[in-house]
């Protein structure tokens, strides 16, 4: 986290610079079937974030050495497009993207019924087209929608939300300025039906009480987003 300095981001009425209350999330839209050649896909906007996810498979896993006899392997890549940020991102190897790919894969493997497809591979590619704080959450949430769109059986969808702290106040779903000057960030990946977790990261500085508040905001927000996901998968796009 960037540390806050003197930037005041909560007004006298307790509202944030974009008008939200501490527990509010930004506007979310979800669309499926956006990549005609993929087996499943999802486009998700979340504030000014935009992610698209393509799912291919189950398909043959090659080379053979990556095959598992008792289950499918899940290949997950998270990437930020060069034009997704104010300063262009050079394509290529990037430790941050590798780590996010890994924790996203760990989260999705916890819900996908991989044992139904021995020796095969399912490939999930998450591309961030526009970034505005919280891209890993948008990517993971959109990936679970895209997997559902591809008809891959899962025990539950995954909803990912991050809360944080600005000006010593805990708030839900940091936007870009809040993230830049904020003091903490707590992204979680939640199974909306059980309230269990498959993804958890955090950095910054939260007291135990603040941590509890951030956790609760995430849990509540997950229910809101889950409603939109179900709607998008049912039929018409959700906005």
């Amino acid at each position, binding site marked *: 986290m960037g540390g806050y300095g003197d930037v005041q981001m909560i007004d006298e009425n307790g509202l944030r610079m974009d008008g939200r209350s501490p527990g509010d999330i930004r506007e979310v839209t979800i669309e499926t079937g*956006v*990549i*005609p*050649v*993929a087996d499943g896909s999802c486009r998700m906007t979340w504030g*000014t974030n*935009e992610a*698209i*996810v*393509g799912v*291919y498979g189950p*398909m043959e896993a090659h080379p053979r050495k990556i095959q598992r006899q008792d289950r499918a392997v899940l290949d997950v*890549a998270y*990437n930020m*497009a*060069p*034009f*997704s*940020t*104010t*300063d*262009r991102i050079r*394509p290529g190897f990037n430790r941050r993207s590798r780590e996010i790919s890994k924790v996203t894969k760990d989260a999705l493997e916890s819900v996908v019924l991989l044992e139904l497809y021995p020796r095969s591979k399912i*490939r999930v*590619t998450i*591309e961030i*087209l*526009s*970034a505005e704080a919280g891209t890993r959450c948008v990517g993971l949430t959109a990936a679970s929608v895209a997997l559902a769109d591809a008809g891959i059986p899962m025990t539950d969808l995954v909803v990912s939300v991050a809360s944080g702290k600005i000006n010593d106040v805990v708030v839900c779903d940091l936007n870009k300025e809040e993230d830049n000057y904020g003091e903490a960030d707590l992204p979680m990946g939640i199974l909306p039906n059980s309230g269990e977790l498959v993804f958890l990261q955090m950095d910054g500085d939260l007291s135990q009480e603040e941590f509890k508040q951030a956790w609760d905001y995430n849990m509540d927000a997950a229910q809101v987003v889950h409603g939109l996901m179900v709607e998008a998968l049912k039929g018409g796009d959700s906005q």
Partner: protein
Amino acid sequence: MTIPIVPKLLRAHLSDLAANNARIDGRSQWEGRNLEVEHSVLPRAEGSARVRMGDTIVLAGVKFQIMQPYPDRPNQGGLMCSADVRPIAGRNWEAGPPSPEAIELGRVVDRGIRESGCIDVDSLCIIPGEKAWQVILDLFAVSDDGNLFDAFALAGIAALRNATVPAERFEVGEDYALPVSKTPIMCSYHKVGGRFVYDACSREELGGDERIHITLGDDDNVHSLQKGLKGIFSAEEFAEIMTNAQERTKELRKILDSM
């Protein structure tokens, strides 16, 4: 990218269709797929476009950086064009360093735009010898159902025409529209079932032979050519394609101009 084994049955089927002057998706020999072009689709880019040709979808985004001009060209900025086909775009595209196919794709599209002179690199100078704009055009494939070349080239020129130089953010003056003086258009032809067709879809690419890419400028001037893949073609075949490209590039240029 993974090179799929070409099924002989597909090749035979495409030959039969060609013999009857037909194509696998019902189009005629020189007919393109449904085309959509949109501007300003990427909030973080200084210029952007989205092109859809049938089930092929691509994005183009323009970003700017400040560079120091090369010592031998103190009054010139630069144009860089980068094409990335990531695994999201189709099951045969794989992660990792760019394949020869991806490198060719990027370089052919780059040459068509660069060689037309549509961006006047002298106009990109800010302070001679010290600061100039580098224009970076990033092409991104969302869905590859064939002919990424034409989709990239069209999205690329559309994004450039849509771009604003972010002088204010870099504290070197006021924002202004990037001057784009020409409109180069690429048309690609693929030999399928023994004859060339325009705008091949992925099944035609899979069961076809060589490709030819032609980029023409506003006055039908040739700016870039490329023959790709294994195959032999005659002067007569090329002349027929060139004639078609002259018609088709005019139509596409009109679409861009009407936006």
